[in-house]
């Protein structure tokens, strides 16, 4: 019954503003990242700093990118490891 009333008053159950908001959210992740490449660069440097406490990595080959799937954006990092440390460096 409630469902029926909702449909009458809301015509489409998926209100179009939610679609708008979701699409904007996704597109702005990309916009902001591409407008400010230094943001990804600082992230990269921070990643290297943290991971280097645990393993020796190939800093030049490190790749950090944003990738799209159906309805989310993921941060994909490819970090080649040269060797593992025996103990984590104390931070």
């Amino acid at each position, binding site marked *: 019954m409630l469902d029926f*009333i*909702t449909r009458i*008053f*809301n*015509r489409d159950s998926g*209100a*179009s*503003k*939610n679609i*708008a*908001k979701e*699409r*904007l*959210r996704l*597109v*702005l992740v990309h*916009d*902001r990242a591409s*407008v*400010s490449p230094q943001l990804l660069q600082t992230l990269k440097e921070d990643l290297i700093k943290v991971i280097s406490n645990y393993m020796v990595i190939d800093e030049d080959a490190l790749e950090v990118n944003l990738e799209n799937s159906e309805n989310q954006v993921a941060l994909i990092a490819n970090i080649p490891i040269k060797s593992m440390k025996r103990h984590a460096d104390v931070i």
Partner: protein
Amino acid sequence: MGEVIVVTSGKGGVGKTTTTANLGTGLAQLGYKVALVDADIGLRNLDVVLGLENRIVYDITDVTGGHCRLRQALIKDKRYEGLFLLPAAQTKDKTAVSPDQMKVLCGDLSQEFDYVIIDCPAGIEQGFRNAIAGADKAIVVTTPEVSAVRDADRIIGLLEAAELREPKLIINRVRQKMVAAGDMMNIDDIIDILAIDLLGVVPEDEMVIITTNRGEAVIQDDRSRSGMAFRNIVRRITGEQVPLLNLEEGGLFSKIRRFIGLK
């Protein structure tokens, strides 16, 4: 020293010029001395919106080029003592003025006026760079549409990169019926996405078109809802705390929907 505020948006057609005209008129109504600067060189419009198109002798490029004094180019408004317009050039292009010249110009204007409001052209190219060069503060105008909000986000990033911190947002042309039906993003949705402070919300209103047809600002109309919204924004600019206008039009459907808890 007056305050220099740039009105910008990224996207065209969201109401920058209308907003500039209304804020200027509203501040002048309160007795402030206001200079409105049309920075949209090549696409001059603030003059027709204010009904001052027949009085233009000199324009902004004549001032920056040294062909006339600043005072000679400023056009006095018909109705309000303290309101002046510095029109854009219509026949030149945006490279006719440089950001450094704009800084000097805004500095000179702020010596004489309480508020200097700059109507920024659409886009993010040199016209935008010029318009923001001499500003102390920025107002970003958007409408509840994906394209306008996306461009607003870009503009906010560029303003912050240019050291114009904490721009304020005006959401224009809100259709409350569509918001109530869930078919238009509401204030919270947009603030959530853009993450900046809200200066005000202006409802979609036919009176804006009607008053603009006459070369008047809707803020002069005491009864219109958009005029009321602009008056509130003006008071907020002067530092007053004014609660948001209730945009609910109280349609039967939205009332029922709220009553049964579906909204």
